[in-house]
């Protein structure tokens, strides 16, 4: 049996585990398990196949089981100087990170995790495998279902296999920190990887060839540090990037991603009001793609 056939068999085995009836919930690394609410206790737990099945450095693509941990993925890719900047807990799984759909702290440079996905094979409510997207780095064949699956908490299906776009690991990565106006820092730099701010201190990540990193760092009056600060884990609020200008240092614990608009905080209620999307269309879609609501019941992407 060729390795590809073996992977296909693993996907089919996973599909039969998901099956066509009864509530199921897919388990990844449980690193963001609480997001969207816990699955119903009666739901049967299934685990997606894992393993980096094919890394093609010259194509800058990687095919892996959705159950692969970020640690395993990054170790495999590093052998060829490449990465997929998912930037989450190393014990998290690729499928889990995509299902939750939250980006890491270098989103400012690398974009949303959604834009790193090329193809997804998922198991739908009938226990059938559905392929969307395509294996190449560019593709507009059919509807872009992959975008919809990212951030869907498995409500449309359980991811079995994904193909991701890889990037070269930057020659130099440097974190700098100190007291500075984060918005001024942002306007001075060309596409920095991350700017974090807690109201008093900024942390900046610059990446690239060393001469550029030195030159960019030279524009700022900051000290080199090991890495980013610990982020408050209580809540994560997404606001318009410019709203971060309204944040004031008030002694409470928060860290904001400048230019992106994400605030990590321990406050129960931040007072931010976010736009309300078209919930009725979303619920209609949910119903069409999983009429009996058997996939990851209990979890809610659309708040009732």
């Amino acid at each position: 049996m060729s390795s590809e056939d073996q992977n296909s068999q693993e996907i089919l085995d996973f599909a039969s585990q998901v099956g066509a009836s009864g509530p199921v919930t897919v388990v990844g690394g449980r690193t963001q398990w609480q997001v969207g609410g816990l699955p119903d206790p009666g739901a049967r737990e299934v685990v997606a196949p894992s393993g980096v099945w094919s890394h093609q450095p010259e194509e800058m693509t990687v095919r892996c089981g959705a159950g692969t941990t970020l640690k395993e993925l990054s170790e495999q890719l590093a052998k060829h100087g490449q990465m997929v900047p998912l930037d989450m807990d190393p014990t998290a799984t690729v499928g889990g990170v995509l299902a939750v759909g939250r980006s890491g702290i270098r989103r400012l440079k690398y974009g949303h995790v959604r834009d790193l996905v090329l193809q997804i094979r998922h198991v739908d409510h009938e226990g059938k495998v559905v392929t969307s997207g395509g294996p190449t780095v560019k593709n507009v064949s059919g509807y872009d279902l992959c975008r919809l699956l990212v951030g869907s908490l498995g409500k449309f299906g359980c991811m079995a296999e994904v193909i991701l776009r890889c990037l070269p690991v930057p020659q130099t990565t440097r974190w700098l920190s100190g007291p500075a106006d984060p918005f001024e820092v942002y306007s001075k730099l060309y596409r920095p990887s991350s700017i974090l701010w807690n109201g008093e201190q900024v942390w900046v990540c610059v990446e690239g060839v060393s001469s550029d990193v030195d030159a960019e760092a030279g524009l700022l009056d900051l000290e080199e540090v090991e890495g980013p600060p610990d982020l408050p884990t209580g809540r994560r609020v997404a606001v318009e990037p410019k709203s971060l200008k309204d944040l004031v240092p008030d002694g409470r614990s928060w860290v904001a991603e400048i230019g992106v608009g994400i605030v990590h905080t321990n406050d129960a209620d931040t007072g931010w009001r976010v736009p309300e999307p078209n919930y009725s269309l979303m619920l209609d879609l949910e119903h069409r793609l999983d009429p009996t609501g058997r996939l990851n019941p209990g979890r809610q992407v659309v708040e009732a």
Partner: protein
Amino acid sequence: MQISTDTKLFDDLSAVLGSRARSGDFELGLYGKDGSVLEGQPAIVCLPVDTEEVRQVVRICHDHGRPFLARGSGTGLAGGAVPVGDPVIIATAKMNKILDVDLDNRVAWVEPGVLNLDLSKELSPLGFHFAPDPSSQQVCSIGGNVANNSGGPHCLAYGVTSAHVVAIEVVLPDGSVTVLGDLTAEPHGYDLRGIFVGSEGTMGVATKVAVRLTPNPPSVRTLLLDFADVRDGAATVSAIIAAGLIPAALEMMDKRAIEIVEAFVNAGYPTEADAVLLVELDGLPGGVEHGVEVIREVAARHEVGNIRVAVDNEERELLWKGRKNAFGAVARIKPDYYLHDTVVPRGKLVEVLEKVYNIADAYDLIAVNVFHAGDGNLHPILAYDSNEQGVMERVHAAGRAIVTASIEAGGVLSGEHGIGLEKRDYMGMLFSSHDMATQDLIREAFDPQGLANPLKVLPSGSRCSDSFRQHVPEGAWV
């Protein structure tokens, strides 16, 4: 033509739009075609000026049970804007305002009829641009870019339209207005914005688009590399990427393309070469210069001839002028051309290119290749003269053979032109009937009556396997 019902429909539309609802033979003829070789016939052409007018037009179509088709500049190459099913055309040409440039959010709200290049020109003094840059960017519209999830040479490094659109105001097929996505980093709920981008007008009409502003790079270098053997050129493409470099653009032209382009624009392209690569690097100066060195090393290992580095902006623009006018230049050899669009793994470029030449020979057509080599996006041009007896059958048969060869090499149906009508019945080459039925479920959630640009993208009856099978091309697996 359904005279009596159309009269009532026309009266209802005229009541909203006045003289901007049209049914003259000239307009109907004009809006019957797009950039493809396909042709249809619309019932009525509407030229709304704002969201409210679009909403009313869609509402009227909905009440009459009449299909509608939103249209930007009509530069699409897959027949996505060709009217099928006697639709009302909603042309967005008069919705061409840049509404708000929000530098604090690095976003601009624009109307769908704004032209791609006009937007980047407007943003340029502020130090920003809109990254997707299709070759048709002088005339194609942002609404069309959203519909097709358009690419362009610089999408190699920057990503396609979907990565640059944060929110879209949409008139849904039932005539309601909604906003998909928002300006926050993680909008609540499912990514309806993401599924709408690239849906080719089958899920509603975009009436306002919030696009991401990309900072202009501080440093840019453009290089032209020539090769005595096209295989070396293609191998250089893979080797550049494998060396860990992602150029802003990495374009390839074959011998015939070089000859016709040079005769057309006099950019100083080496007409004796078998292939050229046009490579652009941008970003901070250190990374750019490092990239130039990597390319020199890699190309030297692959028998490169000359490496010409543009010395100034003028020379850079001249080199790009050649690339961006290549399609028009084809008229020098034949009056008509059919432009294909498939993607293959970069490592298969040489293999598939050779197949393209063989296919063209077998069907007695001339193949010219100008394409986005960096992401494996082939654009074979089949040049022909439409006056030749039976030529279109040969053109279509050759096109189908090219698509088949690309899929066999592990590629996909389309990199940036979309599926439209042209490739609708090829979808079964890439997707199972169940895959397509799933896609159709999503389309139905947006458009239960099937009024928005019907019969595009998915083979008709994708949810009914029996009727679907009639449309599956011969030899395709499902």
